[in-house]
């Protein structure tokens, strides 16, 4: 019975399938474990770029510490939960590994010089996916406006009606803001223009001070900024 060549082939096929199946589980389990390991706060701040800059800023905010102890850590906001978008984001992260090797932002000075561009990247990403990472926890549909403060209640309802998304207003909630030109004093070098402040009226510069003191212009302000290490 076991001597027939057909049954031998069958046994081989079954055992081959079995081995592949088990290997698949082991491989997938290993892959998933490593992937999730890179999705933890501890992994993120194992790079001093993250630990010394954005992590310190995040430590002061409500997503780090709050009354209930429910937290949103780095990947909760910066990595999508769904498998497809998560893999896409993880592949894009190889660019971040590349710049880690290059040392593009390895000092606070370098980091702050790039802060505006880095922040804008994240704002664009969240604008594009309708602030998906916020809405993984904060659902517009399930907000009880009666429980919110008067400002939050009216602003959220208006924003919802106007089709706005979380990141349109809630910028800089977990990290320091990059320079934003709010038309106060002299201009800020490399600052994003505050688009929602219409019409843009440039603030008077020190050149208009009557006693003729030469004030700082935007470029010397920028030089001052980088000199002070901020």
């Amino acid at each position, binding site marked *: 019975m076991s001597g027939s060549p057909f049954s031998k082939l069958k046994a081989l096929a079954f055992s081959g399938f079995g081995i592949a199946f088990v290997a698949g589980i082991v491989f997938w389990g290993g892959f998933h474990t490593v992937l999730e390991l890179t999705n933890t706060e501890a992994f993120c701040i194992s790079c001093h770029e993250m630990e010394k800059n954005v992590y310190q800023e995040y430590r002061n905010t409500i997503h780090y510490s709050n009354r209930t102890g429910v937290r949103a850590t780095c990947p909760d906001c910066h990595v999508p939960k769904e498998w497809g978008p998560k893999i896409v984001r993880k592949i894009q992260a190889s660019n971040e590994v590349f710049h880690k090797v290059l040392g593009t932002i390895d000092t606070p000075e370098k980091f702050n010089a790039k802060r505006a561009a880095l922040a804008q990247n994240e704002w664009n990403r969240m604008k594009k996916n309708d602030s998906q990472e916020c809405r993984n926890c904060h659902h517009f549909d399930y907000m009880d406006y009666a429980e919110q403060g008067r400002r939050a209640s009216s602003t959220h309802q208006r924003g919802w009606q106007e089709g706005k998304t979380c990141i349109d207003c809630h910028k800089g909630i977990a990290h320091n803001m990059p320079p934003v030109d709010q038309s*106060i004093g002299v201009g800020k070098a490399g600052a994003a223009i505050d688009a929602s402040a219409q019409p843009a009226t440039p603030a008077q510069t020190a050149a208009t001070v*009557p006693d003729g003191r030469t004030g700082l212009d935007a470029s010397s302000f920028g030089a001052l900024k980088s000199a002070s290490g901020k």
Partner: protein
Amino acid sequence: MIKNVLRSLLLVAILGAAPVYAADAPVRVQSLRGETPIDKTPDADMYRQIKDAKPLPRDFVQQPPLIPHSIRDYQVTMNFNKCMDCHGWAKTRESGATKVSVTHFKTRDGVELSNISPLRYFCTQCHVPQADAQPLVGNTFRPGVGLQ
């Protein structure tokens, strides 16, 4: 002679007694700081900022208006002023917030700007949020008649 001895003895007794008295019962000053040594930071009281309220009345004429809402995590840095994100004149139509006073537009040289002067950049130097905290010491202050 005996009188002199007695007098000097008395003098010694008076002069000697004073430091002895001070060492026996040191004067304990109770300050608002409590008994925390100067090189230690006392524990912060657990007060929560008032979340959200209507504008609060003023108690004296030149009082900077109080902030009737929580300002947790609001950044006022070289890069960004969160207060002016709602209270700046260009923003109040949308935000419905109180406009910053036009008195804040003058520089120290008397030049009128179109927005707050950098002199007034740090809002919380004068404007403060509120908490449900009792006064540390009692007082009999009452708002001026015109403000009651």
